[in-house]
């Protein structure tokens, strides 16, 4: 029998319904947070910071903040998406249904990525109220954003599978993702860093994600764009490999 795409569609629809049921909270909080960043860093402090590579500081941080939102929204959407049925026991239905790894991923990861893309779009619109920015390579930007949303929704899915409590769900984004995003150049170019921090910063995978996205916006980047794209793709492949392994062994899902 072939792939059960109706099953994927059912999961996707179910997840989106959950999102729109709580649409107010899901949308307001990232928009508010991002607006605060723009007000504090873009308008208040940014005015005193000189241009970076010919780009105003306000416009420089737009891709960084977009990435910050994409990473945290994708991760938390997907991790909660799969963790909730584990928590309530509703996972029994997924396990008993004719859906496999592929269908489950399309449903959950697709929904999580879609949700964070919706929020990303809203954030970009919000940013227009605070700074003037242009997108140098719009198609690349779109492709990049979709890829990153997919990659981190996959990552979130793995996290949700692995987590056995709400604490664990939140600890990884809080202790790993957010610091790495901040240190990955959301608010600065690594040219501003002195050694050894400049080298250390390049060990951070999120540094490449942010710079890849920044290139699509401003046409400038701290690293070659090919390297940034390559790192992002590698991340997606690793996540899919881990998930395939988890499903094959039934780890954490099937007793």
């Amino acid at each position, binding site marked *: *029998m072939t792939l*059960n795409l*109706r*099953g994927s*569609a*059912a*999961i996707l*629809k*179910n997840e989106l*319904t*959950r999102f729109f*049921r709580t649409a107010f909270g899901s949308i307001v909080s990232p928009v508010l947070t991002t607006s605060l960043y723009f007000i504090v860093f873009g308008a208040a402090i940014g005015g005193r910071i000189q241009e970076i590579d010919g780009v105003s500081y306000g416009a420089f941080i737009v891709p960084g903040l977009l990435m910050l939102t994409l990473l945290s929204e994708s991760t938390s959407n997907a991790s909660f998406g799969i963790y*909730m*049925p584990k928590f*309530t*026991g*509703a996972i*029994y*239905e*997924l*396990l*008993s*249904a*004719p*859906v*496999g790894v592929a269908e489950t991923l399309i449903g959950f990861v697709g929904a999580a990525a879609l949700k964070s893309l919706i929020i990303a779009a809203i954030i970009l619109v919000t940013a227009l109220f605070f700074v003037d920015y242009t997108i140098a390579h719009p198609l690349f930007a779109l492709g990049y954003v979709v890829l990153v949303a997919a990659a981190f929704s996959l990552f979130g899915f793995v996290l949700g599978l692995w987590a056995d409590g709400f604490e664990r769900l939140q600890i990884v984004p809080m202790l790993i993702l957010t610091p790495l995003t901040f240190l990955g150049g959301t608010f600065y170019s690594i040219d501003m860093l002195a050694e050894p921090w400049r080298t250390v910063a390049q060990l951070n995978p999120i540094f490449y994600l942010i710079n890849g996205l920044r290139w699509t916006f401003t046409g400038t980047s701290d690293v070659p764009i090919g390297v940034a794209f390559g790192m992002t793709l590698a991340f997606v492949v690793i996540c899919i490999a881990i998930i395939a392994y988890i499903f094959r062994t*039934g780890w954490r899902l*099937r*007793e």
Partner: protein
Amino acid sequence: MVRDIADPILEIRGLQKTYPNGPTALGGVDLSIRKGEIFALLGPNGAGKTTLIGSVCGLVNPTGGTISAFGHDLARDWRRVRSRIGLVPQELSFDMFDKVIRQVRYSRGLFGLPNDEARIEEVLRSLSLWDKRDEPIRKLSGGMKRRVMIAKALAHDPDLLFLDEPTAGVDVELRRDMWDQIGALRDRGTTIILTTHYIEEAEEMADRVGVINKGRILLVDDKAAIMAKLGRTEAHFTLAAPLDSLPDAIAHYPVVLEQGGFRLTYRGGDGTGKGKREVAELAQDLVRAGIAYTGLETAESTLEEIFVGLLNEQEKAA
């Protein structure tokens, strides 16, 4: 003990499950289910009922054995097999904030079927849930929630339905109602496997009963045959004068002296009426032998007592 069934809808062979650093929940289970029957799996807490169901439904990874359904091997053709199986688990578990009808539609989609509002309405109506279709599930009573679980399991018209303790926590009236629902499903051709602690439930509903304990099936047979094989008649004769030993005239009966020789107890029969006949003959033999008695009580054991007796027998044998 396991009789081979021609063309079974479900065939389990040597099924084993040992949980990681846990107990052996299933120690080699063989079971064949007939198409169209209601099969009751009866066993105490921790017997392995849920594990057995979980192994067929994809919730548990068995550590050994084979399962095939509808003539297909479950391990190989899992997509095809699972699309025809429905499961109502023991615990209530769903998105409590979602609406009844949406959850039922979701289940149908998950199993790969196109939406069919007419069928969804039919399922909801058959479970008296139609009026509640737009309620969030959390607002429903416990019994109604359980019906939502059943509606979800029926949304894809399964040919084989598992009900893990369908009437746990349901009041007497609702339980009878649930039995009617299950009966109606069987009449439509659905094969049903249910687990229960309520003997009356198995007695009322099942065509066949399987008794499971400590991960082993002790007995599988037609409900009536189980009664015939193991039904016990117990009769107590209160004697006018105590006896020191059993007189030869009645020694061939399964009788013992109790309470210092004041009571003669018969335990025997097979549930077909043999017990009552023998007690009547015994009574005449007592009169002929000149043994007077002042009282006689007889009782037929229920499935529950049979079941407890079976467990004891197994423990003695072990």
